[in-house]
């Protein structure tokens, strides 16, 4: 199973470094640089995956693994670490630029190399994971703390709090004591518990971990204060891909927000999970790296990469893919446009291609990339084909809003089997197919996104005239409660939306069962008037959906009627049963 590895020693100044190679040396070289308190073994899962297509090189940075330890603290300065990187590149890929992938301290020292003029031509691309350049971080922090905006302060202080361990590492004795007293032995268990990461067998020996942990403290002590105190302006022409873990304990995702100023060719992707994605999601990391390397080699930017390119003035959803069903009108359209306005790439799905195209056109007016599809969400085959095409074209989504729905009113005994099939097909199976197909894509891609399923206040408001509709929505409600529990471990949030009486196309197309055409038209126009009188706009629901996604809420009630019915259902269920006997249809 494991890929053959050859090792060699490379001299850099007065230290010797241990370098390990996998794969065919004629292929493009991918150089993986580890962080603290790791050594080259941390890359084993990712390196094995990449070795099939690339010449993969890892090395123990000075002070770690089998490489030499410099005598003095000054030997750990970033300049020396960048020299090491240059020496390794010169040995493993003389003449041909390499693709750099680095994590944590490895990424910090790689930024040093990537921003160094003499090295830029030797690096074809850089994938940075959880390690901002110290100069960039220092500039960022300074801007935040000197700003008058409370939000900037919150972001700045958030990072300071996450950096508690940096302060700890600067204390005398204590950090060394922690390593000596058994932190090294506990490490694999801590990683599994806190980070959900499996430490490879080769990286388990406690003695090595202890030695790496002790020596590497000088990385912090030699570099942090001078760089953060006097950050320099550092820029690079190398294309940079940021892989940002969203549940990171040590680096704030905001710390990269100012990077476009320094890095004109920048891509940014978010990954589910914590600080060690190379161990918790090696597959996702390997495929992001492979895609970026292929792009840097060929110059052909695939759509999935173009979407995550960080352009100037990008909104908070820039780089995210949002799919909305029933996007041709009402809540679906407004939700899609809200996401588009925040920079997301959006996919409008509707039973009417014309309506979906119109929504996509409106989204493009807001500067977003938008696509339109005609799909019958109730058809398993059509949805499967759509999901496959969408994944091929754009990759896995970050947010899926299963919103498509139809309205139906009438007595249960007059509801025919065909009516049930039609209604459940769209309102329930549509939601099931969307959650199922795109949920799988999100898990496979390690996306910590959201599935938003639009139910209704009818889900908890029984009524004699709404048996079919309310049943379909109650089913969606329960489905979401189960799904949320299942997907929590993957970092995927599930949002249930329960709007009250919203004035949308559904109100004008409700099917009233068991009445003549003429009566149907009269009831429709009468009910539409009631909806207009209520005047709850799809925009309000869309805003609530975005707020729920931002704050990861489980259930969203929109409108006083939704709130009251939910409250009644909890406090006085007998009253909801009594009210269910009233026929509200006009």
């Amino acid at each position: 199973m494991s890929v053959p590895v050859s090792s060699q020693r490379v001299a850099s100044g007065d230290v010797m470094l241990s370098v390990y190679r996998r794969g065919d040396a004629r292929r493009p070289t991918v150089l993986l640089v580890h962080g603290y308190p790791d050594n080259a073994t941390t890359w084993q899962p990712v390196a094995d995956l990449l070795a099939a297509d690339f010449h993969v090189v890892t090395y123990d940075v000075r002070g770690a693994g089998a490489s030499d330890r410099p005598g003095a603290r000054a030997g750990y300065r970033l300049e020396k670490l960048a020299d090491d990187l240059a020496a390794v590149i010169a040995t493993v890929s003389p003449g041909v630029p390499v693709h750099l992938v680095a994590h944590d301290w490895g990424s910090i020292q790689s930024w040093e190399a990537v921003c160094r003029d003499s090295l830029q031509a030797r690096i074809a691309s850089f994938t940075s994971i959880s390690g901002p350049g110290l100069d960039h971080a220092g500039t960022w922090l300074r801007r935040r703390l000197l700003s008058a905006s409370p939000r900037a302060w919150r972001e700045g202080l958030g990072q300071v709090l996450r950096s508690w361990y940096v302060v700890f590492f600067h204390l005398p004795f204590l950090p060394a004591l922690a390593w000596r007293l058994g932190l090294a032995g506990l490490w694999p268990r801590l990683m599994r518990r806190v980070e959900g990461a499996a430490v490879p067998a080769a990286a388990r020996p406690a003695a090595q971990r202890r030695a790496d942990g002790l020596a590497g403290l000088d990385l912090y002590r030699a570099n942090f204060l001078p760089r953060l105190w006097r950050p320099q302006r550092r820029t690079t022409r190398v294309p940079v891909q940021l892989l940002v873990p969203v549940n990171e304990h040590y680096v704030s995702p905001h710390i990269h927000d100012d990077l476009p100023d320094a890095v004109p060719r920048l891509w940014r992707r978010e990954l589910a999970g914590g600080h060690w994605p190379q161990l918790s999601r090696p597959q996702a990391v390997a495929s992001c790296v492979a895609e970026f390397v292929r792009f840097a080699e060929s110059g052909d930017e695939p759509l999935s990469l173009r979407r995550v390119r960080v352009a100037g003035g990008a909104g908070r959803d820039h780089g995210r893919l949002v799919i909305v069903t029933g996007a041709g009108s009402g809540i679906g359209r407004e939700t899609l446009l809200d996401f588009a306005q925040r920079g997301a790439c959006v996919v409008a799905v509707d039973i009417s291609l014309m309506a979906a195209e119109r929504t996509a056109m409106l989204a493009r007016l807001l500067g977003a990339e938008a696509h339109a599809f005609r799909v019958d969400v109730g058809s398993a085959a059509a949805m499967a084909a759509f999901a496959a095409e969408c994944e091929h074209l754009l990759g896995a989504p970050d947010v899926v809003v299963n919103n498509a729905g139809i309205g139906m009113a009438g007595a249960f005994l007059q509801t025919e089997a065909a009516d049930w099939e039609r209604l459940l097909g769209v309102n329930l199976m549509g939601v099931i197919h969307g959650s199922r197909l795109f949920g799988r894509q999100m898990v496979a891609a390690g996306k910590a996104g959201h599935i938003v399923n639009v139910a209704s206040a009818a889900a908890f408001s029984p009524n004699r005239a709404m048996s079919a509709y309310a049943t379909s929505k109650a089913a969606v409600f329960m489905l979401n409660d189960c799904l949320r529990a299942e997907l929590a471990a993957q970092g995927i949030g599930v949002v249930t939306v329960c709007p009250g009486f919203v004035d949308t196309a559904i109100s004008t197309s409700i099917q009233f069962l068991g009445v003549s055409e003429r009566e149907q038209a009269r009831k429709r126009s009468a009910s539409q008037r009631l909806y207009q009188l209520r005047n709850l706009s799809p925009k309000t629901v869309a805003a609530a959906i975005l707020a729920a996604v931002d704050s990861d809420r489980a259930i969203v009630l929109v409108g006083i009627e939704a709130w009251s019915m939910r409250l009644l259902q909890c406090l006085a269920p007998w009253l909801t049963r009594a009210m269910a006997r009233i026929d509200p249809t006009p």
Partner: protein
Amino acid sequence: MSRSPVSPAALTTEDLDGFRRVQCLAYDCAEAVAADMRPGMTERQVAAQMKCWLLDHGVTDWFHQPFAWFGDRTAFHGFSGLGHLKGFNPAFFPSSRRLEAGMPYILDCAPTVGIYTADIGYCGCVGASPVLDQLMDDLLEYRALILALVRARRPLSEVSQAVDALCMRHGYEPRHKAYPFQVLAHRVEKLDPADKPLSIFRFGARNIRELLRDVVIGRREGWSPLWSSGRASNHPPTPGLWAVEPHLGYRGTGAKWEELLVVTEDDAFWLDDDVPHMRRGAIRGVREQAA
């Protein structure tokens, strides 16, 4: 004392020419002022320039004095809800909002020359605005739709509802609903030459009096001079002149035009087809097309 609203017989060719001349003058004013608009100017400055230009060109009275809206005020953002005051909102009056590059704007003026009044709306942008371009292109569809339905003698409330439905289909907000009484259009009458001009809160007393007179007569005869989607407009098109002003809003950008529609006993036509938005449509290759 009270006169009937203008019957088709009462609107002579000469009258229509008179109305057309004022409408043309009003659009000339909007185009002239728009050509000189620069970033940094305020709504008040621009409205004052329009007033000045019109007074210099023989205008003697107003239906309302010029309005100017910049930026998201073109879509009446924040004008709605409780603070909206049913359209009687001081926020409509020109403010100190300054024009910036890329900002859309709307100029709206309703001058009277002699006994003839026009009411026009003109929009543009300092720089490029793809949203405004799209709104303007789509607005031509409303022009065709309104004329087609009025010619088909559909009740005016139904025409207004069709406009609302088209807005929904397009994904726009019908922002004319922010106007007083949510009007899509209102009547414009020939004035009594004997009356003296007087402006109250930027509105011309003579024109408003005609409108109120129409309200009284309309109530007796079963029609309303304020054309909206409501029940009061559930009557066939009333002969006379209507200032029609569909106003679309999309995410902080608003666009409108306003022009006079001539309704006769059995037909209807736009007073003038040579208006800026039609010329613009011809240049962009957008044709009027009824939905």
